[in-house]
């Protein structure tokens, strides 16, 4: 009837999600970051400067 009185209950706050995060989960982030960190191809710089042109029209 009375609540079970487990000692040490409070110290067991382990987060399961972090413990079970698979190795490849960080790989996803790396796949993404790898592209983010690539130098921007010229085509994009050209495009951005063309946007400038239309702005000054």
């Amino acid at each position, binding site marked *: 009837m009375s609540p079970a009185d487990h000692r040490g209950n409070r110290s067991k706050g382990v987060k399961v999600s972090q413990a079970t995060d698979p190795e490849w989960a960080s*790989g*996803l982030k790396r*796949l993404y970051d790898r592209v983010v960190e690539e130098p921007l191809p010229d085509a*994009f710089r050209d495009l951005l400067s063309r946007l400038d042109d239309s702005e000054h029209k």
Partner: protein
Amino acid sequence: MSGAATTRELPVRSAEDKRAFKRELTAVVPHLRAFARGLCGRPDMADDLVQETMLKAWAAQDRFEPGTSMRAWTFVILRNAYLTDMRRNRFRGEYDEGVAERVLTAPAGQEEPIHLSDLHRALLVLPAERREALLLVGAGGFSYEEAANICGCAVGTIKSRVGRARAALAEMLESGDIPDRSSEDPAAHRAILEELDQVAAGQGETAARSL
């Protein structure tokens, strides 16, 4: 393509607003490239998609609310452009094998440890809706709420898609059994396109939906 007509009044943007917009747009381009690469797996096609997105974003800049996330806003545009392109390709009835072959030997991923390329391959095998959910949350670092806004669906839907995507990836990577699906096999490609239609049908909650 003119979809829904927009009759809403839009604020007039100053030249300074435009400069600010362009700064922010420029800053998110690398992220657009990363998202696009994850979505379609083909670097050349991904970059085309990003350029298309930049032009559309620029043309629609009056609809961007300053102070909100440029990355989220442009991701919606990119996503819609991706879905549209995929469907258009189907109508052309041809899958560009030349491009696919180039990509298979493309230098983009060469210095990558083998398991990262496996991961990418496995990612491309996922149904489109799960792939994009996992990309947004697991790779792009968006919250479930933000991802739901980008995809135009409920937060719970995103959570379940991410969960299933993770489970499927885990299984493929653990078993080492990653079906070839994305870039070589036209039949598989058609299957992907059909899924895309379903994904596209469910979209449309966000401000950028008609872009």
